[in-house]
């Protein structure tokens, strides 16, 4: 529980705290409404093994806020709260560029800014000494995601087909920026973390967003360069969050250094848990896997129990599974279901798992 892709939306967390009779302890919410920090009492209650060290924003950096509640982060990406969710809004600062030289004119995160890793080395060391499995948190979105947030989805897709040199240049710039940030992050905590989390969604419910051939030609080299860098800075495992139906490229991800794959979204096409374990279980650790689209959203307590038992049975034998819901627990999920989820994990999650 925790990490921006296996955490919990604020409304559900508030209800959970009320249900458990716990006071608010100043927990933080991240830029898109997901709980960034969680009450350690809840984490212990749910037997969560991981703790995270989170990179800070630079000192003296102020988030830009606009009328209508729009917020802009360091990358120049804007979000707005619509209903429950913080959503990327259709603001595309690189939407009009014609030439790859114009990419440098965008305001990118300042790699020379101070304060991002202040105190993190001690924090990671203390968590490790206390016996927790320690991970970093995703810094922001993925290489593919940031590219289309800045350029506009349709435009970036058309770039991939008709102006691949522009699309590649944009993704290379994002990769360069991430390498600079991970250099600082892992320079501080690399010796004390067991997992480095990165996220980049490539899949939808029934298929990939782009053909595997396009992924391999233009995005895979960027991912490889970043993951090679991460592996050069730490012995920690590389965790990739990649939603949806992505089976066609899982071998590619393993090839370029992904050690832990999340969320292995169980209802996405081609992502059946048992099949994934059989095909990749000797080379990959799975993280997530518990269905939140139907089981947690619509299921009874008994059905949730069954769901957890099923995923444990599929993923856990022989090792290589980190139990988590397949994505952030959604705002409307009642506290009773969340408690049932983690109780079931405790019931079925002790080795030997049969």
């Amino acid at each position, binding site marked *: 529980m925790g990490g921006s892709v296996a955490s919990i939306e604020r409304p559900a967390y508030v209800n959970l705290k009320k249900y458990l009779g716990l006071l608010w302890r100043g927990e933080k919410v991240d830029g898109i409404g997901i709980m960034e920090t969680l009450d350690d009492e809840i984490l212990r209650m749910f037997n969560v093994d991981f703790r995270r060290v989170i990179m800070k924003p630079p000192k003296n950096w102020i988030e830009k806020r606009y009328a209508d509640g729009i917020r802009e982060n360091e990358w120049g990406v804007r979000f707005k709260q619509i209903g429950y969710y913080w959503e990327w809004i259709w603001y595309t600062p690189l939407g009009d560029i014609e030439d790859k030289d114009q990419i440098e004119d965008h305001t990118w995160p300042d790699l020379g800014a101070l304060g991002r890793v202040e105190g993190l080395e001690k924090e990671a060391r203390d968590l490790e000494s206390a016996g927790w499995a320690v991970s970093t948190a995703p810094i922001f979105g993925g290489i593919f995601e940031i590219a289309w947030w800045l350029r506009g989805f*349709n435009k970036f*897709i*058309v770039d991939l*087909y008709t102006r691949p040199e522009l699309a590649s240049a944009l993704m290379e710039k994002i990769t360069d920026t991430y390498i600079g940030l991970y250099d600082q992050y892992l320079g501080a905590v690399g010796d004390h973390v067991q997992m480095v989390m990165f996220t980049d969604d490539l899949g939808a419910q029934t298929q990939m967003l782009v*053909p595997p051939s396009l992924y391999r030609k233009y995005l895979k080299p960027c991912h490889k360069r970043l993951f090679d860098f991460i592996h050069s800075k730490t012995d920690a495992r590389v965790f990739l969050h990649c939603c949806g139906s992505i089976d066609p490229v899982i071998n590619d991800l393993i090839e370029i250094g992904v050690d832990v794959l999340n969320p292995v979204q169980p209802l996405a096409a081609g992502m059946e848990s048992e099949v994934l374990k059989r095909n990749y279980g000797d080379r990959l650790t799975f993280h997530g896997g518990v269905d939140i689209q139907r089981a947690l959203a619509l299921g009874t307590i008994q059905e949730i129990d069954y769901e957890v038992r099923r995923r444990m049975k599929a993923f856990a034998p022989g090792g290589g599974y980190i139990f988590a819901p397949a994505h952030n627990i959604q705002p409307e999920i009642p506290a009773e279901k969340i408690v049932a989820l983690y109780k079931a994990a405790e019931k079925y999650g002790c080795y030997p798992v049969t």
Partner: protein
Amino acid sequence: MEGAVAAVQHALDNGVPSREILKEGLSRGLEKVGTKFEAGECYISDLIMVGEVMKASVAVLRSHWKGEVAEILGTIVLGTVEGDIHDIGKSVFATLAENAGFNVIDVGVDVSAERFLEVVKGRGPNILGLSALVTTTMTRMNEVIETMERAGLRRKLRVIAGGAPITDDYAKQVGADAGVNDAIKGLEICKGWMKRVDA
């Protein structure tokens, strides 16, 4: 893209009627893409690219249509329901529908039932297209349809619901005429409705 535009221009230069190029050429190509998409051989990015190819090709035809009345299949008012700002699928559908001959009025995202009603009253469409991506907002579709019913407009148009979580069963439950989770299927349904209107 250049290949498609060149092929359209070549056909026009050789006297092929523009309507035939659209119906027998471009639309047939679109049907093939639809079949491939259903078979998992095409991806959403391919649909977006197909939309751009259609746009560029139809632009060539349109310049040839000056002075002629272009055939309009029908009018679709389209929007993403209130509380939801996802529009990738909606925008693919809008591009494909426009280039297939529909007049598409895209009301945008986070559209209230009242706003849908205002536009429907003003533009009198044949079809109302409602889009939603998340399970918490697809329930708004019911609100929009009930608003049309109260205004006495429901029977004057067809309603199609679209989006990743939408099924035909769900669509019928909320009072829509059809539900789809892919743009090409949605377009075929809309074309089918307009053919029955003409018959």
